[in-house]
């Protein structure tokens, strides 16, 4: 993998890399990707991935918590608040 590819991938993932990471990641990622290439070599014909053994699980729609039970704890965990509102930077 080229450095430019790593930097592009980092941008897509909303990450900034350190100098060291920029130098070590290309080789490391290339090794890992070449290792997992194995998944592209095995014949999986006849295996339909939509034919999962998974099923939809439904339940009655109820209130999972008493209203307001966790309100203070959640507010307290927020990095930035104003008058009991979550505060974010403007997006427009």
């Amino acid at each position: 993998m080229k450095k430019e590819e790593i930097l592009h991938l980092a941008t897509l993932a909303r990450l900034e890399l350190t100098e060291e990471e920029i130098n070590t990641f290309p080789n490391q990622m290339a090794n890992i990707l070449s290792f997992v290439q194995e998944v592209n070599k095995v014949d999986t014909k006849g295996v339909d991935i939509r034919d999962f053994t998974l099923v939809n699980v439904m339940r009655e729609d109820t209130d999972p918590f008493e209203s307001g039970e966790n309100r203070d704890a959640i507010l307290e965990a927020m990095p930035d608040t104003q008058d009991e509102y979550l505060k974010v930077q403007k997006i427009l």
Partner: protein
Amino acid sequence: MSINLETLTITKAHEAIKNGDFSVRNLVDAYLAVIAEKNEQLNVYLHMHDDIDDQVQKAQQMFKDGTATMLTGIPCALKANLMRKGHIASASSKILENYKATYDATVVSHLENQGVIFLGSTNMDEFAMGSSTENSAFGPTKNPHDITRVPGGSSGGSAAAVAADMALFALGTDTGGSIRQPAALCGLVGLKTTYGGVSRYGSIAMGSSLDQIGPFTKTVSDTEIVWDAIKGHDARDMTTLNDSVWEQTDTKDMYTIAVPEAFLDGVHPEIRKAFDASISKLEQAGHTVTHVPIPALAYGLPVYYVVMPAEVSSNLARYDGIRYGNKQEGKDLLDSYIKTKSQGFGAESKRRIMLGTYVLSAGYDDRFYVNALGLREKMKKEIYALHETYDFIATPTTTSPAFKFGEKTDDPLEMYLEDIFTVSANIVGTPAISVPMGTVSVEGKDLPVGIQFMGGHSKDRQVLDMAQKFEKL
């Protein structure tokens, strides 16, 4: 009051408290004394919980009331990715360094109802990504058997806590081997239950289709006690299995065991010796051991390193510094996201987020992700079919005993190979346990190693029975 913690089990502690040999307070104090003595050196606990006295009082009351269970008053260590309301759950990441859980994990509620004493939260690889705890933002944990070596990971702190008598049992999480591998390297029993056996509600997610919570204990019967307390259907985790699956016990006197001979190449010669000796003992005891090629096992790691990073890149996207966690303010919202993530995540987290982003990118997803899912189904079919004939697949838990700090940090791929024997059980969702199979001598130190038994889907009780039979040999 002196209590021999080294040989203590949950059952013995329960009897002793009931008989008045010692109190819950005595027991907890004994563990706290060891923690005070060893924690600085071993770096096992990141945070002690500040309500231990209240918990002790509650447990003692339960003994007085006659409502005590086997787990009442038993001191427990919690991996730092498991939430207990009001206590820091950092997942050993800088991004959650000061994050206090806003609710209890289901496993925590179950244990709290039984009066378990939560001592504190233990160190781990950041967001459970690693096999040595060297990816923790708060320094590695040391193996109590040799402090120049890793305890394994990612649940290394939980394993070391039990091995060093800093808790009587501990909870960890296992996504690709993160309970079984440290259990093996620290000389403990470690169980990865059937996927859906234990609720994941309140565990900080890494790979949601793979993660399971499970216990570390010194004996198989202790593991069974904890597993019975934490397992079961949970309306808050829709992937949990219906409780009816646990009604069938189907334990047997003698079991059939498959050993994938060709898959064991490259195992450390001393581990190979210990494994062969264990297999002989099983045969002598009357179990049937057959050498069977199981090609599906070889796909485990490649499938894992596509599926897991894909899920990691989705799960870790939530740490954006907006609703909780550490925030780094940037010039605009996007810049804040980037700064928050870049300064909050360690190198391994970044690597896996990027790998996940890569395998899910348009143009690559068909090549990697879709193929990996197909292969995962193929593995399931083959391994489920194998279990029609054989009760268990037995392998060593790890290829080598505990390695030294720094030995594998430069080459992530080599670290990933640590999971080679454990990862398939997560891929196909079956239960697997690591049980101690003695020690091997390396550079003058006796290092513990483990044997793994993988069982059929939802046959956890059978897996525990096999492990118990092996333990007694």
